[in-house]
């Protein structure tokens, strides 16, 4: 009897399933492949991923794929059930834009997220983009009501079938009347600077005795400390673009992207935007923005304060947007390397180094942009133009900027209202080589053609002197960029000195905040680089290291087992510091030794390298004398050092997912403590700058 009943139930279920399947195929609805801002309603306990400050602007966007044989007739966006915009497809194949809304039908990526993962943050599963797929956008949306909000995209196809996808975002309320606001915010960002990088610099610059540091780095003296989780939108290991952007948008960016959420179009400058801290505070308080870096200014960290793109490598457009959208960011100081993006492709400007041919320009139409009109409308952004022959330095000057090409002209610039400083073609020389150039001990800076480059503390001083003229305050980001770049190259002596140079800039920021207590300064990193660790110190003399390197035997027995002193054998390395603030030499007896947890193959001598490793970003890297430098750590010291097998592929060490330390000083410093997400920092900035702090 029971068996008969069971059989009957099975037949019923089968019939029901058949009808359901038939119904589904008769009325196939569109698929919403992506909903932006990303959220995670699949797990009711999950945090809403997207968070914004009150009135902070961002874009709503969805990618909709029609079922076979249909087209999308309309897409509507609603927040908390109230329609924000309804976009009607005009039936043509042309992209259409009306006011701050857009419907993109061409130029989509070959693949889009697979159905079923549309709302999750990391869409790892993709499908070929179906015909007639559209990307619909509402630009420059904002919400002033604190709390969690639902937003809904409703897609209707040509048969009238609809699909609704719902996400969520949070507007984070500030505590008003909390105290005095921070007028100025200074972000000191040591790129790739983990705890080991800080410790190494302290050991070298200050020394230890009887177990105690004999001095403190400037960043050590900051009273508040937090540990920061650095993950990006799509990986536990971030690159510098999200690593910086997450601090200043409050939201997770995808690797290689800055100031935007990911999308499904090929255009690198049309992604859904998120308003930067600089833009937000400029809009509501009239602040200025300063960006100072030792890198090429197009690099991810500096650009992730002012430029919105999904391609951190789009140098021409990135450099252009600094100026073209300076009305949005209040950009008033831009200093670093990167002149190659500012020189017209076909100009007759001569190379800085007469030995080089060409003018150093790497401007290209392929990395330039024109914004779609919905972005222009929603963000009051300038359109831009595809132009490899733009004289961008000239355009900056025409817009009222003073231009400094070297340290001397920077110091002579006085206090203009706006200051552009481009001190090399791409990344500036590192402090190791700049200081040796100033000491007359090396000609590396001459090889690059830029013998008069400023140090980071000098640039920071100049930047603050310009920015402090704004009575409404400023946001300043100062990056010690080559801590990361030299850690990638596992050139320990160079990155240790980069941290020392960076710390001297930190001291400048601290001095300003001490004199101007309405200033908040944080020292942090975007991520750790290299898995660097201080493994101990040399158990032998520098002379002996030289002797071994010059000898015939380069084995682990000779250069590792007999050299690397751990525990007691490490003792306390002692360095002599010159009056210029840098070690007299990195190669002291018993020098500190650095190991790497995410190392590529390399040869190790434990001695400093007279030449830096080649920098592929330099336009003349293929020409003498730069092409005489070691090409990568895999060949550097190959005739003098022992081989260290890497744990990762490639030629360079990689970033790690380790938490990094953050130090805070000044007004609002007490907001920082505990273990926090990098996006949390943005909301602490908001509280400090708007709601105030005691």
């Amino acid at each position, binding site marked *: 009897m029971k068996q008969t009943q069971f059989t009957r139930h099975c037949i019923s279920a089968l019939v029901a399933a058949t009808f359901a399947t038939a119904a589904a195929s008769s009325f196939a609805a569109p698929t919403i492949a992506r909903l932006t801002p990303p959220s995670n309603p699949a797990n009711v306990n999950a945090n809403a991923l997207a968070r914004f400050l009150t*009135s902070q602007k961002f874009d709503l966007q969805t990618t909709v794929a029609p079922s076979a044989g249909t087209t999308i007739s309309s897409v509507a966006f609603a927040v908390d059930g109230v329609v924000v915009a309804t976009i009607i497809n005009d039936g043509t194949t042309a992209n259409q834009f009306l006011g701050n809304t857009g419907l993109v039908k061409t130029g989509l990526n070959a693949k889009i997220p697979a159905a079923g993962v549309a709302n999750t943050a990391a869409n790892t599963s993709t499908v070929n983009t179906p015909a007639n797929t559209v990307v619909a956008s509402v630009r420059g949306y904002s919400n002033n009501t604190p709390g969690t909000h639902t937003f809904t995209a409703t897609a209707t196809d040509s048969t009238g079938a609809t699909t609704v996808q719902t996400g969520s975002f949070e507007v984070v309320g500030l*505590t008003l009347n909390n105290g005095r606001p921070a007028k100025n915010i200074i972000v000191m960002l040591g790129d790739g600077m983990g705890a080991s990088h800080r410790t190494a610099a302290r050991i070298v610059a200050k020394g230890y005795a009887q177990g105690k540091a004999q001095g403190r780095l400037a960043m050590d003296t900051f009273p508040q400390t937090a540990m920061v989780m650095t993950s990006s939108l799509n990986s536990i290991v971030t690159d510098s673009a999200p690593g910086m952007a997450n601090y200043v948008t409050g939201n997770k960016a995808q690797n290689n992207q800055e100031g935007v959420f990911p999308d499904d179009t090929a255009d690198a400058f049309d992604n859904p935007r998120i308003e930067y801290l600089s833009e937000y505070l400029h809009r509501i308080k009239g602040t200025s923005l300063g960006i100072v870096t030792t890198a090429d200014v197009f690099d991810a960290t500096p650009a992730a304060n002012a430029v919105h793109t999904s391609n951190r490598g789009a140098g021409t457009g990135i450099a252009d947007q600094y100026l073209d959208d300076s009305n949005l960011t209040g950009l008033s100081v831009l200093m670093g390397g990167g002149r190659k993006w500012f020189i017209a492709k076909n100009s007759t400007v001569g190379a800085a180094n007469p030995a080089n041919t060409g003018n150093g320009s790497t401007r290209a139409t392929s990395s330039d942009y024109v914004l779609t009109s919905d972005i222009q409308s929603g963000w009051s952004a300038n359109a831009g133009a595809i132009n490899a022959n733009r004289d961008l330095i000239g355009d900056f000057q025409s817009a009222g900027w003073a231009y400094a090409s070297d340290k001397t002209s920077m110091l002579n610039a006085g206090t203009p209202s706006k200051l552009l400083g481009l001190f090399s073609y791409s990344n500036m020389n590192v402090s190791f080589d700049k200081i040796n150039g100033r000491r007359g001990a090396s000609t590396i800076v001459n090889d690059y053609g830029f013998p008069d480059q400023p140090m980071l503390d000098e640039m920071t001083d100049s930047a603050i002197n310009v920015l402090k003229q704004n009575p*409404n305050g400023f946001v300043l980001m100062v990056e010690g960029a080559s801590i990361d770049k030299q850690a990638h190259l596992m050139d320990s002596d160079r990155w240790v000195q980069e941290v020392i140079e960076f710390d001297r800039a930190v001291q400048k920021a601290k001095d300003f905040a001490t004199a101007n207590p309405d200033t908040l300064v944080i020292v942090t990193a975007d991520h750790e680089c290299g898995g660097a660790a201080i493994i101990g110190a040399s158990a032998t003399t520098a002379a002996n290291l030289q002797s071994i390197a010059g000898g015939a035997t380069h084995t682990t027995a000779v250069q590792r087992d007999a050299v690397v002193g751990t525990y007691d054998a490490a003792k306390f390395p002692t360095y002599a510091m010159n009056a210029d603030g840098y070690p007299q030499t990195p190669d002291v007896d018993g020098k500190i030794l650095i190991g790497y947890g995410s190392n590529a193959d390399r040869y190790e001598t434990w001695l400093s390298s007279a030449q830096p490793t080649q920098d592929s970003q330099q336009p003349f890297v293929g020409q003498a004398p730069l092409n005489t430098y070691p090409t990568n750590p895999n060949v550097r010291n190959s005739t003098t050092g022992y081989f260290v097998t890497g744990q990762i592929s490639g030629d360079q060490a990689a970033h790690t997912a380790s938490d990094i330390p953050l130090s805070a000083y000044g007004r609002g410093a007490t907001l920082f403590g505990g273990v926090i997400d990098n996006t949390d920092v943005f909301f602490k900035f908001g509280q400090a700058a708007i709601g*105030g702090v005691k």
Partner: protein
Amino acid sequence: MKNLLVKGALVTALMVSAATAQAAVYSFNFDGAVSGTSANDSSINPYSNVTFLSAFTAADKDADGYDILDMYDNFVPGFTHIEAYSDSDIKVVDPSTIARGDAISGANSLDGRNDSIYIKFSDAQSNLNLSFQLENTHFGLISQIDFVDASGKVINSVSQDIMGHSFGQLITASSANAGIYGIVISSGSTFDNLSISTIAAVPESDTYAMLLAGLGIMGLVARRRG
């Protein structure tokens, strides 16, 4: 009879008058002295019972004198109050000199860019209207105006969205409470033509009923006497 009617009319007039009177008016245009002068200078602020201070939020104390905070050292809702910085020195400023446009009237405005303005009374106020004009810019976010008691506890709070406000926008807030010893205006802007007055009380329906009843009784008495 005539005498009685006159008396009745007088009483009625007095009652209506009392209901609509402006009990106190404090008015500031901040133009009595040069930019940079303290807002508490008598040339700016002639009212001895009013002081301009800079406010911050502080935790209430428990019975042992310790701050009432949660386990993360954050404020506990309902257990906070407003205090003033000991170094408060709110000033007037010519906003055109700080990239904030011209003053709404005269030369100066009250500089609240970097201070939550705490207008503190030495005596209790009741039923207050506050109004002021924002500067000639579009800067701003959310304005929160708190009315506080003698201990700095917030009696009531009024929030207004002033994001992208119009130039010189008029902001108003009211508190129909007694025992008001201070008003706090959130920071971020300069303010001009600040005025504090007593709410013009509109007689409620039962008040009108009583008035009419009184007049009716007087009319009845007069008629009987007549």
